[in-house]
């Protein structure tokens, strides 16, 4: 039996039937952590089974909780998970972003401490990057970490920290010296440390995962420094590449799970509008081109712009198709699905801002890929 057949047989047996339909809302997603909320007993079982085989982190070495698969076999696993219709067992910034960076830059002790817990979904991570004064100009960040014996004392503020209120640990960019890029370090901070406080931010789409996070004399063991002092910017960029790749893949999978635009248009009585039909065809073509590019592999900034700009156009199109029914905020007169389409549209406006705005990505492509002068 080939790997693909073996995987499929195992998935059909191991994945509970209740998890073989797409999640209807974010409440059904599994993010793990010390304070994990489980949408169902099946969801917990599914994560345990996947983690036991190392399939939550398929390419990581076995000793760190992974399955030690090649990239090719990991792709087969992902394809089969999609084909069988299994929901992701675990969503995790630890899996998508921190893990690959720790494998490359972490000490043996850091890998053994953090990677298996990430793979099993025991610790939930958040990302401490942006600050009120450091958005697109991320390297101007000012949160200070001052060495005091075997600890760093951290003071400052982060913003747009997704799920900081629910996360157990944060991977955080801090300033250990004045020079702009060379003074940045990469620090792992336990959110339970005294002096850490997180506060959620409301967006135009309503409640959001985003938070402000405040650090007041927070003492962080120096062994939680990843890489060298001053190597933070290099590590931060490597992690941003992972983030852009992971987010692009997830976004397109989400589009795959949505009702096709043609059928949505038919249900709202505009299925025979030729102008709308061309917009739908263009959106489908764009989605296809992006999926094929994800499969082929491309620069993460290229993927990030393509995926998020397409997602924004697609959400604009969905809300336009629903007409008056896409104008509701809450309550009577609108189905839950219609309200979700509207909220998704509002939420989508942030996609081309977060994770490095489109304009920043275009700067990166111009410099790094095309070699255009500063």
């Amino acid at each position: 039996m080939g790997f693909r057949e073996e995987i499929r047989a195992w998935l059909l047996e191991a994945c509970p039937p209740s998890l073989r339909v797409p999640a209807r809302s974010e409440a059904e997603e599994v993010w793990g952590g010390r304070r994990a909320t489980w949408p169902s007993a099946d969801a917990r079982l599914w994560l345990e089974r996947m983690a036991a085989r190392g399939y939550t982190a398929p390419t990581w070495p076995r000793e760190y909780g992974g399955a030690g698969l090649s990239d090719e076999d990991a792709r087969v696993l992902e394809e089969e998970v999609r084909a069988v219709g299994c929901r992701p067992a675990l969503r995790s910034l630890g899996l998508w972003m921190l893990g690959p960076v720790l494998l490359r830059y972490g000490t043996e002790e850091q890998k053994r401490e953090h990677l298996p817990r990430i793979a099993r979904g025991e610790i939930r991570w958040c990302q401490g990057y942006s600050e009120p004064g450091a958005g697109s100009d991320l390297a101007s960040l000012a949160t200070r970490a001052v060495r005091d014996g075997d600890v760093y004392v951290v003071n400052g503020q982060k913003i747009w920290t997704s799920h900081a209120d629910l996360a157990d640990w944060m991977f955080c960019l801090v300033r250990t010296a004045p020079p702009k890029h060379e003074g940045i370090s990469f620090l792992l901070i336990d959110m339970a440390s005294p002096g850490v406080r997180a506060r959620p931010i409301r967006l135009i789409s309503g409640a959001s995962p985003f938070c402000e996070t405040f650090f007041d004399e927070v003492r962080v063991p120096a062994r939680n420094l990843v890489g060298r002092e001053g190597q933070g910017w290099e590590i931060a960029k490597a992690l941003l590449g992972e983030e852009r790749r992971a987010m692009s893949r997830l976004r397109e999978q989400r589009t795959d799970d949505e009702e096709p635009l043609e059928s949505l248009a038919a249900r709202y009585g505009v299925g025979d509008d030729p102008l709308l039909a061309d917009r739908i065809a263009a959106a489908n073509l764009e989605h296809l081109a992006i999926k094929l590019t994800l499969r082929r592999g491309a620069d993460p900034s290229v993927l990030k712009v393509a995926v998020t700009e397409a997602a924004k156009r697609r959400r604009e199109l969905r809300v336009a198709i629903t007409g008056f029914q896409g104008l509701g905020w809450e309550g009577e007169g609108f189905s839950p699905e219609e309200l979700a389409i509207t909220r998704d549209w509002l939420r989508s406006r942030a996609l081309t801002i977060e994770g490095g705005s489109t304009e920043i990505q275009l700067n990166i492509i111009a410099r790094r890929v095309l070699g255009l002068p500063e």
Partner: protein
Amino acid sequence: MTWTEEQIALRRTAREVAGRPWAELARLGFAGLTLPGGDGGFVELGIVLEEQGRKLAAAPFLSTVVLGGGALRGRPELVARIVAGETLVALAHDEGPRHRREVSARFDGGRVASDKTMVLDGNTAEWFVVSTVDGLALVPASAASVTPLSLIDGRDAARVRFDGAAAEPVAADLGALLDRGAAALAAEMLGAASEVFERTVEYLKTRRQFGVPIGSFQALKHRAAQLHIELELTRSVVWAALHALDDGAADAPMLCSAAKARATDTFIAAAAEAVQMHGGIGVTEELGIGRYLMRARVAAELLGDAAFHRRRLLR
């Protein structure tokens, strides 16, 4: 997606010989790539066509290898002559002012009566495969009346009239031929778009105004980066279509249309931006950047424009 050693070597050779006479390309085996007895498939043909596109060469690959020759599986002696580079065959299909799949020509009692236009390589072909409502028909050029069309991009095209010419039936699927043609043309367009874009980026690095390279201006950087993204997406679709043809995949027709739709929009955008970013010299005949714009316009209309192919993608 990775290239084999052979494919990398093929691209090198194809780049070197693009623009050389047909007989020479045939000696390298290029005329038989997708035909019986040939060595290769649509992926290999795509590599050769990308390189043709880069140099704006227009050797008769589309007409003779894909569209005309592709219909002649039942005529091995003719295919052998095509592969040897000894004869050219054109598909006479279009009848109106824009590409359609449907035709009105008749093939009745062994004779073809029809007025065809935009027949690629119609001036040099020895044989015509004519699409009719009654199926495909093979007619020698000596039995046709050929009027050359002088196109903006210099591609060989003609109006071809058949006044009850004696013809033989040919068994082939017209739709499949046109799908393959669309993918092959998309590969040529991808190559041309890549070349004109790369030349533009080079120009942005070297051309100085206000004391600095113009490529340091963000207004131009962002447009160049956007084009790079479009090219990357189009590249994925074109290569996927060529692979699907070689694999005989069920979604090959859909991917062929996706490839032609994307290649059309991308090539037009790359050529138009190239002219604008080159400034005054971009519209001179001497520099030749404008020739990509003309090739883009012609290629856009051939075998169906972007809207034509997008329509085929609707579920």
